[in-house]
């Protein structure tokens, strides 16, 4: 191409790099310029910044309200670091983003910082995993300790819960201590629910149903969770399947009850 036969202004080379239109000769020329010139490295970063702010110039638009609801439901259904899915996403993202970072670093300083960053990133990820595992162990231990404390009290009720309708295999119990407005729920054989749906525990007191909270079984269909209660004088506990995490009253099917 004619234009590459002539020396180009450094600015032109930088813009060409950002736009991805440099020939290999131009790329080598830019590399040499960047290596010794901090001012040019700054220029390069500024041009990158320009490239990432372009969308601000687009007409203002907002996604429909249901998108927010769906995002928050997906977030509630998939808490942090919940397993393989999150890890897969992470692996896929790193090459897209860090790959280009590596190119810049190699040009600007001639050192492949990217590998160091990746190692550091992996170390951070390992530490985060360890912290998560510790937090989970602590939560489990807390639940077990509380369960033991509840069972040691004299006024503790064990309310068996049985599956109904399509969940006849589901079984378990709620441990309710008079001294504290909470129940520990221990269930098994609960099938997984599709995204957007949750099991909800309800307490029935004075013929009123009050939502205690939502829960999801683990992959083995088991539940072991402490749920707060509004009224310790409850007569019945029921479990329904709901789309909303905060319904005023049960709308979905009742799948377990303590009164069968």
């Amino acid at each position, binding site marked *: *191409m*004619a234009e590459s036969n002539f020396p180009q202004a450094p600015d*032109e080379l930088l*813009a*060409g790099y*950002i*736009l*991805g239109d440099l020939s290999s000769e131009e790329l080598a020329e830019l590399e040499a310029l960047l290596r010794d010139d901090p001012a040019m490295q700054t220029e390069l*970063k*500024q041009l*990158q*910044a320009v*490239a*990432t*702010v*372009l*969308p*601000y*110039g*687009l007409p*203002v*638009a*907002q*996604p429909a309200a249901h*998108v*927010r609801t769906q995002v928050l439901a*997906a*977030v*509630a259904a*998939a*808490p*942090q670091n*919940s*397993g393989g899915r*999150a890890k897969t*996403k*992470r692996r896929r993202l*790193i090459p*897209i*983003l860090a790959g*280009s*970072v590596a*190119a*810049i670093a190699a040009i600007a300083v001639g050192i492949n910082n990217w590998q160091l960053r990746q190692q550091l990133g992996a170390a951070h990820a390992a530490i985060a995993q360890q912290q998560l595992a510790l*937090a989970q162990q602590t*939560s*489990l231990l807390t639940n077990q300790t509380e*369960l033991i404390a509840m069972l040691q009290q004299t006024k503790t009720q064990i309310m068996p819960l049985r599956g109904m309708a399509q969940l006849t295999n589901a079984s378990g*119990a709620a441990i309710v201590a008079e001294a504290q407005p909470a129940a520990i729920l*221990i269930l*098994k054989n609960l099938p997984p629910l599709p995204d957007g749906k*949750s099991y909800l525990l309800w307490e029935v007191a004075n013929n009123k149903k009050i939502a205690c*909270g939502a*829960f*999801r079984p*683990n*992959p083995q269909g*088991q539940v072991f*969770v402490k749920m*707060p209660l509004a009224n310790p004088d409850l007569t019945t506990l029921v479990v329904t399947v709901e789309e909303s995490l905060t319904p005023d009253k049960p709308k979905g099917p009742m799948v377990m009850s303590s009164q069968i």
Partner: protein
Amino acid sequence: MVFKLCCDLTIVTHVYLITSMVLDGSNHNLELLSTQTDAALIQACQAGNQGAIAVLYDRYSGLVYRLAFRMLGNAQEAEDLTQEIFVNLWRGTTYQADRGSLSSFLITLTRSRAIDRLRSRSSNFRFLQRWSQTLITKPAPATPFELASLEQRSEHVREALQQLPDKHRQVLELAYYEGLSQSEIAAQLGIPLGTVKTWSRQGLLTLKTHLKALIE
């Protein structure tokens, strides 16, 4: 009565997060969270605070959506991508504050994912992968641009774009939003490849001149 307690450890954490969201006064929390910086909110997300992702969504969903809508051309797909970006932000935590601003990260990620979707529409579609798939690599204090509100940022960029000759703006937009290579742009507009290069480079440099005070 003896119950089997060997549940998967993660279930305990899951359920606590869900119940805490349902039961605590989440409106109050959102109010407090909405005053936090992006970096603090990302940390809160990583600690499992679901209110933090709600605040980030409120802050940046419009920006992500308008880019997705411009690139994909329909509301349904743009909403789908917007949802994917924020759910991934929650799950993936690939964003690192020391590599640049969250808004730059979200724009880069949205553009990259939109290009993936455009590419999956047509195997003949060619893409300019390097164009802007870069992040600011050095830890930097917030620039005046980042401190400005979304509306102010939009105003600045629109003003800067208006300073460009139409032909420069056109080639930049074709490369950025349509993912077209420069030779494809040349073919589409019926102009020489060298001209496309010159216009797009000059367009970018002019933009930088007008936005310089805000981004450095």
